């Protein structure tokens, strides 16, 4: 390869489907995969004479998110019509926001792999209605399903501050975590709740001059993996193309590529970005939105501690490692559950293990959150305390955890009923250990020898003690006594 130095420049346009009960401008329910055209009314069908009425919840969600993304929230905003003809757009205009977006000039912080945090600037956050879906059939006709038409979408546009393909994925993951924490979106990529469209180009230094490659917009990305791979692929493709024919950025040579998930390659969709004139103008059917200080305060009362902040608090205050803190703050229910259990007195590391190794596995199997398993954070703290005090074994803690999902009595009570409490009484254990030592002279001999056989013999003796106590002996206490006996005699 020739000696060229280049920088990747990526900006993202993101659409987030809001988790409101009804559509943006009518009362139709939002249901995934409903029978085509079964969730429609005169308004979202764009029938003659129908008028839109703003969904206040959607606006509140948008304001909440704009705040979480450190944006300036508009005190006065309005709705604009964006005109273009397409069969999935029944009015042939989309109600959107043009020059007065709900949020502007913000930023999102994303955790990088090396533990550092990067700020990506947010240009704007605005609300709009989604279009329907065209379904292309074998016949010469296409079909239109308007169930999705009018779904509230939050459009988030970043500045081109991303310079590595991996950062695109990290931003997406972080944004997903934020919107889920805020409860404004289910943010399920597979269901199209979050759609990312990266705009990519390169700034190339060659022969003491800088060249910019034509900007590419990538569409149809339905996973975080595809997002990262597509940007990496585009980087290489643009570099190759530049080295081959020297094409540089010009007005009107923006191209649209689709992502082919099977070939793992971008595929050209539109050669030239047509000079779209959307003829934006204020929608006369809707009144402007005034965001009063009072209303803003009410909305911001729903602004919770954001995941990244929580994650670093778990590291600094609770001594967790960054990985565990990341797993616990992947969703709000888990993070809150953990935080409350620790606040109820549970040892952070023990609570973390109970959640990540047992709780999340079960919750995942049941497709619910950890807080829906029937165990309160307070009870989980009690369980963690028992593990910490050596009252039960790690194995027993799993059994007790499972029992606690149905049984509302304390973990102590459950452990008692199931005979899972460990014997830690040194006097009692010493008696049993003495019996084992007397009964197995050869093993004792081997254990003392310090040779190859020592470790195995030691394990055998431990096992004998556990067998006699039916597994209830505290292994740490047994080991301690056994060691001193073997040394001393």
């Amino acid at each position, binding site marked *: 390869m020739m000696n060229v130095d280049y920088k990747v420049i990526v900006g993202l346009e993101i659409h987030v489907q809001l988790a409101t009960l009804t559509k943006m401008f009518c009362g139709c329910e939002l249901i995934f995969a409903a029978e085509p055209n079964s969730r429609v009314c*005169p308004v979202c*069908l*764009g*029938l*003659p*004479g*129908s*008028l*839109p*009425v*703003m969904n206040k919840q959607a606006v509140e969600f948008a304001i909440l998110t704009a705040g979480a993304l450190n944006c300036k929230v508009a005190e006065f905003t309005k709705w604009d*019509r964006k*005109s273009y*003809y397409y*069969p999935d757009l*029944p*009015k*042939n*205009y989309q109600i959107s926001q043009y020059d007065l977006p709900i949020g502007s000039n913000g930023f999102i912080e994303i955790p990088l792999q090396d533990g550092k945090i990067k700020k990506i600037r947010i240009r704007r956050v605005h609300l709009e209605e989604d279009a329907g879906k065209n379904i292309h059939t074998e016949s010469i006709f*296409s079909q*239109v399903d308007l169930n999705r038409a009018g779904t509230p979408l939050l459009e988030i546009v970043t500045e081109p501050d991303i310079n590595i393909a991996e950062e695109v994925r990290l931003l997406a993951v972080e944004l997903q975590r934020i919107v889920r924490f805020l409860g404004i979106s289910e943010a399920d990529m597979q269901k199209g709740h979050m759609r990312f469209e990266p705009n990519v180009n390169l700034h190339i230094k060659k022969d003491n001059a800088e060249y910019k490659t034509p900007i590419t917009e990538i569409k149809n990305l339905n996973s975080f993996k595809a997002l990262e791979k597509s940007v990496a692929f585009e980087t290489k493709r643009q570099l190759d193309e530049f080295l081959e024919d020297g094409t540089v950025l010009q007005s009107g040579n923006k191209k649209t590529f689709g992502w082919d998930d099977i070939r793992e390659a971008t595929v050209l969709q539109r050669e030239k970005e047509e000079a779209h*004139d959307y*003829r*934006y*103008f204020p929608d*006369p*059917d*809707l*009144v402007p939105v005034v965001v009063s200080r009072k209303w803003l305060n009410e909305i911001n009362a729903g602004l919770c501690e954001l995941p990244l902040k929580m994650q670093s608090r778990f590291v600094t205050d609770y001594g967790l490692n960054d990985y565990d803190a990341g797993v616990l703050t992947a969703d709000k229910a888990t993070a809150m559950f953990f935080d409350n259990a620790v606040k109820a007195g549970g040892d952070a590391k023990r609570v973390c293990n109970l959640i990540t190794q047992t709780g999340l596995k079960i919750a995942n199997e049941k497709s619910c959150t950890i807080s829906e398993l029937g165990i309160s954070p307070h009870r989980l703290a009690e369980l963690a305390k028992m593990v910490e005090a050596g009252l039960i074994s790690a194995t027993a803690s799993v059994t007790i955890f499972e029992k606690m999902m149905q049984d509302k009595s304390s973990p102590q009570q459950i452990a008692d009923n199931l005979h899972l409490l460990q014997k830690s009484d040194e006097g009692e254990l010493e008696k049993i250990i003495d019996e084992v030592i007397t009964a197995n002279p050869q093993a004792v001999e081997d254990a003392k020898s310090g040779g190859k056989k020592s470790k195995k013999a030691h394990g055998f003796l431990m096992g004998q003690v556990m067998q006699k106590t039916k597994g209830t002996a505290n292994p740490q206490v047994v080991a301690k006594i056994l060691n001193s006996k073997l040394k001393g005699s």
Partner: protein
Amino acid sequence: MSNDILKLTCRELRDSIAKGEVKSSEAVSSVFAQIEKYDVSIGAFLSIFKQDALKRAKEIDGKIAKGKPVGALAGVPIAVKDNMCTTFGTTTCASKILENFRSPYNATVIEKLLAADAVIIGKTNLDEFAMGSSTENSGLKKTVNPWDKSRVPGGSSGGSAAAVAAKMCFAALGSDTGGSIRQPASFCGVAGLKPTYGRVSRYGLVAYGSSLDQIGPLTTDVADNALLLSVISGHDEKDSTSVDEKMAPVYDFSAKIDEPLKKLKIAVVPQLFEGADSEVVNAVKDAIEVYKKLAAEIIEIKMPHFEYAIAAYYLIATAEASSNLARFDGVHYGHRTKNPADYIEVYSKSRNEAFGQEVKRRIMLGTYALSSGYYDAYYLKALKVRNLIRGDFTAAFQKADCIIMPTSPTTAFKIGEKTADPLQMYLSDVYTIAVNLSGVPAISIPCGFDKNNLPVGLQIIASTFQEEKLLRIAKMFENHTDFHKRRPEL
């Protein structure tokens, strides 16, 4: 008997029906007899609902016979302009593109009429999508003026005005974007009110210029107008631009209709008399004399931005229309071209085939006004002019209770007289358009006749949500004149 019924006002008919003196079914039959006799030549109706209307009239008669409570328009036959959605019949907007369109829902005003026990007897002709001043732009039918069948009824609510003037209904609803209720009311010699923007719900009114459109009543007299307005007014949660009733309370606007206003102050704008026909000017000046005799004080004012109203209107209304009418594309409903080559042709050919000349002209004008590079010079400038015009009205209403001027510079013109020159046609709305731009209410009532025995309209304009005052001022004139009692010979 049937002829006597037709002489009644809405209020008289309603009261007679309530007392059992007249049956609603008789009133409905009389109206259909009139339609069958005269609408062949007048052409006011695009559709009539004879069977359904009679059935409904009998139901209301039944209710009254049983002594059950009934609404404010119980049994009264009413017509509505065919740009208001009804679940019964079609809603065509007099356009080929919606010729067979059936709405799955009723406009809010239709629901309100039905709730008041009115009997909707048919839907009236209009300029296609309410774009026009003569009803000649109807894509479906020709309507003539009942006073002179060689002349236009005005427009765009020409069908509604002609139907009321020819007694083919007791009252009608129209819509007014730039004068479309008042100008045909003036041409047909009836009372037509454009309420304050936001007073009446627009839900179910097929939009032309959304920030200007307003539904209002056309009636034979002012008191009937007040009655109809009371029925159709009010906040509608389905229309975000309809006004909160705390700000604009709705009550029976006809209750105090006969109480004259004391210390009435009327503003006139001398500059505006210049462009009108002398016979129109004289009739309006005579009307001013009537008010003087009623002890009104007349003051002269200037409205410096009034003359820019037409220019601003034809940018704002067409810009909104270009967007509002984008949905008529042959994809989801309405006319679709046969054998399109691709989906682009579904749009271009369907629209080209089914929209009329004037609609296409306005869509193109509006599209141009909103286009990148022209937006600031045209649309934005027009909005600024609109604000200045609002300012003119605000200033006027600080000095006077109302403004009086002609409704139209001429009386009804000949069919075909202005169709070749759209600009001439646009000028016939010179007095009405500024009212829509500023949102205030205005009424047109008959105030005289020209040498051809054609009615002249007097326009009275009041401040925002002052409909009650406006109607009382109009009623003062009516109480001292009899122009409203004259009926055309059919």
